[in-house]
């Protein structure tokens, strides 16, 4: 692919939170429809924005990875529908030999008729899940996951650091395994079985432990944990945050699961968010840390996150107005249509492809250094 370099110089990266809100909006929209046309539209919108605005950083390859994962999900869903799904009456495509199961497995079917209706239902459901996954992939490709962690409130700072450290440890661990396996070959060992595993694992883990002790010393010497809140206050803010986040989870579930009562959705979400915010503010107040070049939230961030919100709202309202169009029936078979309001709302989510600042692209020379040959480690988050 050749890239037309933007005429505008790089100004700044969009706040990662804005990309995540935009992607969450699209994922919420996908969760409310099984209409393959709408799902395809969501995939196209997310794909176009990713293609237009992703950087050449390692995490930017996440979109393709999630897309492949989505295809796997669809395939698994279809295979299960063919082999063990509940029988759906309709147009029989193939007849598979059926296995008679004992009484205790009543309700489960192995083989039997494969109908067009059953197959399509499975494809729709699989496509829905795949689309939601791909939306997460789009967020990962567009926003550096570590920069998102940098944006966490002060109260969650320690958690954020732990995750960042873990993220940089994984590639080091992989490199350690490569090195030790090479060393085993130098000793004339063939690496198989439990003894082989122990021979590789012990030096790698010992090395990792030494590194983490070094890192802890370096962090301590550089002022990590200075001016931390007293334990009582930390526990209080921690408890508040945890309860709040639990509320947010329940609320989101209620919102996304169409069968749960309405009271479980928006109200719980709002109350949970408020409690969590209170906990985080309480915890952050005592933090004396400052931030270097924090990501700013400006007009562009508002536009990007709101475009995601519009997409979600459009589909939610569409679902209320015309449920049949958003969940086209497969039994009896009905050709899916493209409802106007959700379609327009989803197209709004294309805005970030022009509004968000164009990415900075630079080519980096990486030289291989240590011996033996280091493994190439791709970061997949």
């Amino acid at each position, binding site marked *: 692919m050749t890239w037309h370099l933007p005429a505008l110089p790089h100004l700044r990266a969009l706040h990662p939170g804005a990309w995540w809100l935009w992607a969450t909006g699209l994922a919420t929209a996908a969760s409310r429809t099984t209409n393959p046309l709408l799902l395809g539209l969501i995939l196209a919108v997310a794909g176009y924005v990713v293609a237009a605005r992703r950087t050449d950083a390692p995490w930017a390859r996440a979109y393709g990875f999630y897309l492949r994962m989505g295809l796997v999900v669809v395939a698994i869903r279809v295979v299960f529908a063919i082999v063990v799904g509940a029988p759906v009456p309709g147009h029989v495509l193939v007849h598979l030999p059926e296995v008679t199961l004992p009484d205790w497995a009543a309700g489960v079917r192995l083989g039997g008729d494969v109908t067009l209706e059953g197959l399509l239902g499975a494809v729709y459901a699989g496509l829905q899940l795949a689309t939601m996954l791909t939306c997460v992939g789009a967020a990962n490709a567009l926003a550096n996951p*570590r920069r998102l962690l940098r944006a966490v409130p002060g109260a969650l700072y320690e958690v954020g*650091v732990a995750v*960042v*450290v873990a993220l*940089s440890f994984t*590639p080091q661990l992989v490199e350690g395994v490569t*090195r*030790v396996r*090479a*060393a085993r*070959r*130098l*000793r*004339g*060992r*063939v690496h198989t079985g439990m003894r082989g595993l*122990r*021979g590789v694992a*012990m*030096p790698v883990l*010992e090395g990792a432990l*030494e*590194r983490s002790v*070094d*890192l*802890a*010393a*370096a*962090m*301590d*010497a*550089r*002022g*990590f*944990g*200075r*001016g931390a809140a007293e334990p009582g206050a930390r526990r209080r803010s921690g408890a508040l945050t945890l309860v709040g986040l639990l509320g947010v989870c329940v609320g989101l579930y209620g919102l996304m699961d169409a069968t749960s009562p309405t009271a479980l959705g928006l109200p719980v979400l709002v109350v949970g968010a408020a409690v969590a915010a209170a906990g985080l503010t309480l915890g952050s107040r005592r933090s*004396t*840390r*400052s*931030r*270097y*070049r*924090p990501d700013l939230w400006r007009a562009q961030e508002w536009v990007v996150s709101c475009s995601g919100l519009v997409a979600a709202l459009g589909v939610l309202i569409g679902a209320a107005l015309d449920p049949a169009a958003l969940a086209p029936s497969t039994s009896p078979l009905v050709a899916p249509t493209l409802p106007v309001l959700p379609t327009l709302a989803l197209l709004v989510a294309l805005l970030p492809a022009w509004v968000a600042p164009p990415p900075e692209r*630079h080519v*980096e*020379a*990486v*030289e*291989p*250094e*240590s*011996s*033996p*040959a280091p493994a*190439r480690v791709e970061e997949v988050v």
Partner: protein
Amino acid sequence: MITFEHVGIRYTGSDAPVLSGVDLHVPEGELVLVVGRTGSGKSTLLRAVNGLVPHFTGGLLSGRVTVAGRDTREHRPRDLADVVGYVGQDPLSGFVTDTVEEELAYGMESLGVPPEVMRRRVEEMLDVLGMAAQRGRPLVTLSAGQQQRVAIGSVLTPHPRVLVLDEPTSALDPSAAEDVLALLQRLVHDLGMTVLMAEHRLERVVQYADRLVLVPGGGRPLVVGAPADVLATAPVAPPVVELGRLAGWTPLPLSVRDARRRAGELAARLGAAPVPFSPPPATGDLVAEVRGAIVRYDGRPALRGVDLQLRAGEVVALMGRNGAGKSTLLSTLVGLRSPDAGSVRVAGEDPAALPSRELVRRVGMVPQEPGDLLYADTVGQECAEADRDAGVPAGTAYAVFAGLVTGATPGQHPRDLSEGQRLALALAVVLAGRPPVVLLDEPTRGLDYPGKAALVQVLRGLAADGHAVVLATHDVELAATVTDRTVVLADGEVVSDGPSRDVVVSSPAFAPQVAKVLAPLPWLTVAEVAASLKAG
């Protein structure tokens, strides 16, 4: 600025104190160099300055350490972060963030420095480090010298008054080490920073030091004084000082420049003496051959058509900057990486195609991290397994080990060995199969002068026994002492290959100190000079 008063330090679970009765005062603006043998307590002394000992490591500290008026008993390392900048031995394991800019800002964030001030200081520090072009680069992609500079810069941005460095140049090639030392020089001279630094490679740093602290080890009292005075009797000394001792110069020269200005008379005497003996090119059997080897990593060439022949009985130094392809060439020789084009033959076979058991009888390699080769719980077990792997009579490997090292017992855990002992154990394990080709990757990291002297004996013995030895190293002094032939790699190509004396005498980067002092005379080591003076 830094004051130690009657300080004693004993780690938990050990009977003998590491340091005892330490009295030391470092005034503001001084650069103090801490020297001593491996395991003598240099790192412990450095870590006591910012309270990592005992707050982080545990142990018992008696007496008092104060920095800028703050007592380390009441202040934890994090409370001293604004007055002491501490850089550990391995910069990569101390990095908390993942890009240059964020790493420079990390310490200031912890201290709550306002954002505008942080921004300004990061920009200033990028200029001081000379790394403005690499500001957004991931830290892991930087070269070793750049990483070390970022590590130093990242503790400097909070504007500490003291900088503590543990072995800042040990792992660097000569020119990267010079970059780091130039940075330190600038900090001391222009910014009045107080620096306390430990370093094995005295030849690189001693001329910059205002004072020297010799840690004799075993809890004996420190020797503190002007570098020339302390080095007159110290067990560790760079070649230029040894040359001064030999020639009887007082005060002793500390830099090549000092020595060269006084070397006129010595050079005249040597001019009349017989030239040092250069061994003729090795004529032993051809034991390994690399022909037109090309190796790429992700499409980037690491070797671009390398030819190399190794003969029995020669010791070859493989030199070149970090990333020049030295380690890659060793990997191809030992069959860890087969070349994308070209051929490699070791004892007539392709090493990459050999089964592991056959491989160890033809070629052995000690990797950069000798500990990678070791995984048994005791030295004895390790040696026994090596014997079994190589199919040699029990006790072979241990006999080699015992010949290299004194004071280690078969019941010890390999991790409890000193750096030099661990290298010896790895070497013994490799030598058990008596491979005709022995490769060593950076064997002198963490070795002090006596450790190196022992290694030199071992390598000479191997060559005399008919092994071909290849040494990838940055250590020009070691290469000058032990090798007959030097191969210099640059950017994946062999740029010179010839007798060590011819290759290194004229090279600004790879010439040992004695050669620089006496150039254009062909003497490389103090021992050669001594021998010639005696003969003449």
